[in-house]
């Protein structure tokens, strides 16, 4: 559950730059950095006995978000001149550089990472993290929902649809692209900070190319034209392997089917991704497009 909510929030952080048409896969990079911020602060800087205070976690999240935002502006100004797949590649390069650096420098603990991150909850089966994760997701979703309905959001969408035309109607593309990129980075950083506590450990494997692609799949499978899409996509794709595991565990299934479901669960997962892409070109959550209007205007 917590993993689903965190994944959904991460998907939103990729959706934000996508609102202005920027295919940035930097999310896992910022996520990793955010996690390191929280992990280092809570294990090496702050020493608390007993359960770790939630306000401190919130503070770490804000700090991580702010740090990632600043970094995003620094990277974004040069990188966002790139378009489409080139931007995607440049951001993947960023993720990879973050990964290698975190393996190399000392304070991140190398491949082992940082562990025994203080826990705010005593009965740590993790579900209590929803207390923080869910409001964060709701706030982020509400923010995006509102954003789509105000001038700034419209400017972002205009850039996505036609950057040149947007420029010609007075919208500064660089400024808004960097803004949406930085907002995504801030969100990813905050999610990372929370995840570090949730996972109890943080290491270089958190922010990888694979994660970039996974988050992209969340958004595209869910639907990239409304903020609900990424949320649904992330939740479905995160739950899917577990769902298949649960289905395989149902007692009444024939043995061969249960075996296939259990051992071939990842194969089925891959197949479902292909099938979803083929059958839901707009994502599971397609934009509303009433037939009536299309006819009327022709």
């Amino acid at each position, binding site marked *: 559950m917590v993993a689903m909510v965190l994944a959904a929030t991460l998907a939103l952080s990729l959706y934000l730059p996508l609102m202005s048409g920027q295919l940035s896969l930097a999310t896992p990079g910022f996520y990793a950095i955010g996690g390191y911020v929280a992990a280092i602060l809570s294990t090496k800087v702050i020493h608390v006995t007993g359960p770790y205070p939630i306000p401190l976690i919130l503070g770490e999240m804000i700090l991580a978000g702010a740090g990632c935002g600043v970094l995003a502006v620094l990277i974004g100004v040069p990188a966002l001149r790139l378009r489409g797949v080139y931007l995607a590649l440049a951001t993947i390069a960023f993720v990879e550089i973050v990964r290698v650096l975190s393996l190399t420098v000392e304070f991140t603990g190398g491949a082992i990472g940082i562990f025994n991150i203080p826990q705010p909850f005593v009965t740590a089966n993790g579900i209590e993290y929803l207390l923080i994760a869910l409001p964060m997701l709701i706030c982020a979703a509400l923010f995006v929902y509102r954003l789509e309905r105000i001038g700034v959001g419209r400017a972002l969408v205009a850039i996505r649809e036609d950057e040149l035309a947007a420029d010609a109607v007075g919208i500064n593309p660089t400024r808004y692209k960097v803004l949406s990129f930085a907002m995504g980075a801030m969100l990813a950083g905050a999610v990372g900070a929370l995840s570090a506590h949730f996972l109890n450990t943080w290491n270089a494997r958190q922010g990888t190319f694979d994660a970039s692609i996974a988050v992209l799949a969340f958004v595209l499978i869910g639907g990239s034209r409304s903020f609900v899409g990424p949320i649904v996509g992330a939740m479905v794709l995160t739950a899917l392997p577990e769902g298949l595991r649960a289905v395989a565990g149902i007692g009444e299934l024939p043995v061969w089917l249960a075996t296939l479901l259990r051992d071939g669960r990842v194969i089925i997962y891959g197949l479902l991704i292909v099938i979803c892409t083929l059958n839901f070109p707009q994502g599971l959550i397609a934009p509303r497009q009433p*037939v009536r209007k*299309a006819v009327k205007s*022709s």
Partner: protein
Amino acid sequence: MLEIKNLTVNYGGVVALNQANLEVRAGEIVTLIGANGAGKSTLLRAVSRIVTARGGQLTYDGHDLNRLRPDEVVHMGVAHVPEGRRVLARQTVQDNLALGAYVRSDTRAIAADMQRQFEVFPRLAERRNQLAGLLSGGEQQMLAIARALMSRPKLLLLDEPSLGLAPLIVKDIFRIIGELHRQGVTILLVEQNARLALETADRGYVLEAGEIVLSGPASDLIEDARVQQAYLG
């Protein structure tokens, strides 16, 4: 030569063509006029099979076109000069022309045909090694027509050859269309500039909101009050 019966095409939920009937006889220039969005281009696209008809028959030389892929239609001798020219901008003029003859394998005759195109369109000869994307609009239109001719078509589908061109160039293009006609190429011409089209064509059809509303010899249509009111101004 070409017979279209009850052709219906939908784009999504929108009807682009509704039960259209049209025929082109060998040696004719037939023009199709109508307002923007009336479905003129759609009809040509249905003939060359780059859109799929929802209903109706498309018969060319006794063959059912609805069963064919676009490339097979070209093999049957139908060449389509699409709207907006669509030359291959990243290939040279010469390569564009060579690709026009993709369906043919008679190397020597192809070379001769290319030479002929260069005679008909001297501007292209000058620029044969340039990338097609660097040509001006008029030159691109000429290249698009020349490219289509490289397949030695029996039927030429021309979509808006005058679109966005200066008056002088439009005259030039229509002069060439007339010449092609005299050489015996059958032409189905879609044109925005109704006066020019009707002056060039033998027969004409008027398309409104996806339906054929009027047809007849071009000279009659040019006199028709409704046509004058709506298309000739």
